[in-house]
């Protein structure tokens, strides 16, 4: 009885030591999970997930404090990518955080803008150009469509417009196959 205990105990200790050594010796340096999760998020910085931007959301996911289905701009694709990365099941987008929509940008109506800089302060990627008492304008190529500039504007001069597809970024649609499966 004693010999059995001893034998198993020593075996466990030896194997534990080997595993510990292997964990250190063969450790693979990879990006921290937070960086990997952040790399998959669309960087809209809109806050619809409930966090103050994509990085805080990534940190929450990595810490297990948030679910992977809270990002409307990312949509299904992002949820699937996060599921693959973290080894969990993909689930549908949580409707509490909004619905997935096609990418839009915003445009400032220059007739109405009063130059108050409130939208500039709100934009998370500094995509609005302007100064106090000077015309504000949105740099369309940098606008992520987060719409955070719209509530602060006191004269409601910011409008959402869909992104126009041009010949350069048109993509072939998936064939509408009569699926017999």
């Amino acid at each position, binding site marked *: 009885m004693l010999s059995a205990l001893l034998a198993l105990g020593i075996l466990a200790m030896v194997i534990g030591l080997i595993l510990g050594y292997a964990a250190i010796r063969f450790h693979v340096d990879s990006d921290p999970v937070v960086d990997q999760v952040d790399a998959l998020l669309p960087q809209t910085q809109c806050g619809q997930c409930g966090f103050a931007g*994509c990085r805080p959301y990534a940190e929450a996911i990595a810490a297990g404090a948030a679910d992977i289905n809270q990002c409307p701009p990312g949509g299904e694709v992002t949820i699937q990518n996060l599921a693959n990365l973290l080894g969990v099941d993909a689930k549908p987008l949580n409707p509490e955080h909004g619905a997935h929509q096609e990418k839009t940008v915003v445009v400032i109506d220059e007739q109405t803008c009063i130059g108050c800089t409130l939208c500039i302060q709100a934009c998370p990627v500094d995509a609005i150009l302007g100064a106090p008492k000077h015309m504000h304008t949105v740099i369309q190529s940098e606008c992520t469509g987060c719409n955070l500039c719209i509530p602060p504007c006191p004269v409601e001069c910011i409008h959402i417009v869909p992104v126009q597809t041009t010949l350069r970024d048109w993509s072939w649609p998936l*064939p509408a196959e009569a699926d017999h499966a």
Partner: protein
Amino acid sequence: MPETPPRPLDLSFTQRFRFHGGLHLEVCQEVAAAHPIRPAGIPPQLVLPLAQHIGEPARCLVAVGDPVRRGQCLAEAAGMVSAPVHAPTSGTVVAIEPRPVPHPSGLPSTCIVIDTDGRDTALPAAPATDYTQSDPAELLEQVRAAGIVGLGGAGFPTALKLEHRQPIELLLINGAECEPCIACDDGLMRERPHEVIEGVRMLRHIVQAAACVIAVEDNMPEAEQALRQALVELHEHDIQVVNVPAVYPTGGERQLIKVLTDREVPSQGFPADIGIIVQNVGTAAAAFAAVSRAQPLTSRIVTVAGDGVREACNLEVRIGTPVRHLIAAAGGYGSRIERLLIGGPMMGFTVDSDSVPVIKTTNCILAVTAQSMPAPPPAQPCIRCGKCTEVCPANLLPQQLYWFARAASHDAAQDFGLFDCIECGCCAHVCPSHIPLVQYYRHAKTAIWTQEKQKRASDIARARHEARLARLERIKRERAEQLARKKRALADKEAGDNARKSAIQAALERVQKKKEQAGTRPRNIDNLTAEQRRQIEEVDRRRVNRSSPQDPE
């Protein structure tokens, strides 16, 4: 880049090698090239898209209302991978706006619209150049300035393709028009072989190629004969005309190279990487015209065919001519048209209106009825029969690519060679389930490109956001420091004031003490006059008043 050196070239070109797969297609035998090339005439309005080539669209140089003459540069090349656009005839610019263009999406694109005046006035003739006396770099410039792009269908700026740093062993001229129905190169070689040969000579001079061949399919004997005849007449002994088997898609650049030289262009590389440059016969002729007659690219030969037009023919067409004008020149519609194709029946795309213009890369218009090209039956499930694998010229597994494209498994699709697919359509043609395979691959490719673009955009957005956070942090930090500095300054000042106050106090006390210690009267109060005594008493009175506690300030 391949690590092993490419196989040595057999300059006799007697052997033909085979690429995997391919199809024997026997359709459209009513060859348009049987009739001579006719001019299509000048339509009342020309529509010139700014993007007729691979790369950046040209930058417009004219404004609405400007009169233009034939050969005038209307738009300049925007960057290295771009080409200028020239006026095909004289007229007035009436609009610069989005118009329908020949593209599978059906989306419009910015075009210069010219109302023609019918007079076809040209710019004053520039001096013709004898290319044999010119420096290759100069010739390249002329080719570039003339807006010459690959006329075989891709539209890559020719001057860019001819520029190279690697030594070129072989200049291969592609006259192997492998897609059925297209006959524009056939017609060109039959009727203007001298232009072609001169053009080939000039291109060879530019690239300094060691060897030069013109490849013709073996079902174009008249074209081959005409070229050989021209070689004799021009006393040209250093260019060969060789024929290649009429297997689709032998006319594809990579497949043609394989058939003639047994070399394979590396997957992500170009033919120049293995010492070969390929040019279309039409491009060679156009380049020659550009240099020898200072004629920019303003017209090209287009085949109009299909069972929906009355007379299949080859037409000399001004760039920008609407397709309906060409159909009219070909005798008009003969019956109800099911499809209007730009390009051939295997790789061409449909357009929904015949008002789209002919552009530099338009080689064929096919108007077909439902009899010859019925609507495809609904797709059935893939039964993994493997016929697609049998015919793929790139030796891919189209079936696997189909499964991956359908499931949006982009990584797996790329791993299986998605970007090596040349979209020739052989796989979809033989599929017994009628699955539109090529559309799946095109969808997957564009989806991957879109994803990469989105990734780049989101990386930039992240960088901007982090820069903004850093900026706000910095401002906050600077404000905090400033505040701290001010507080310190204030504290210093107070300390300084206090120190001064206590120093004054100490001095006063010292004086007081000294006085008390000395206990002396003032020494100068004897023998005072009455006036002096009165002043002293006044001062004493004042001192008594002042000794009551008051703030000295």
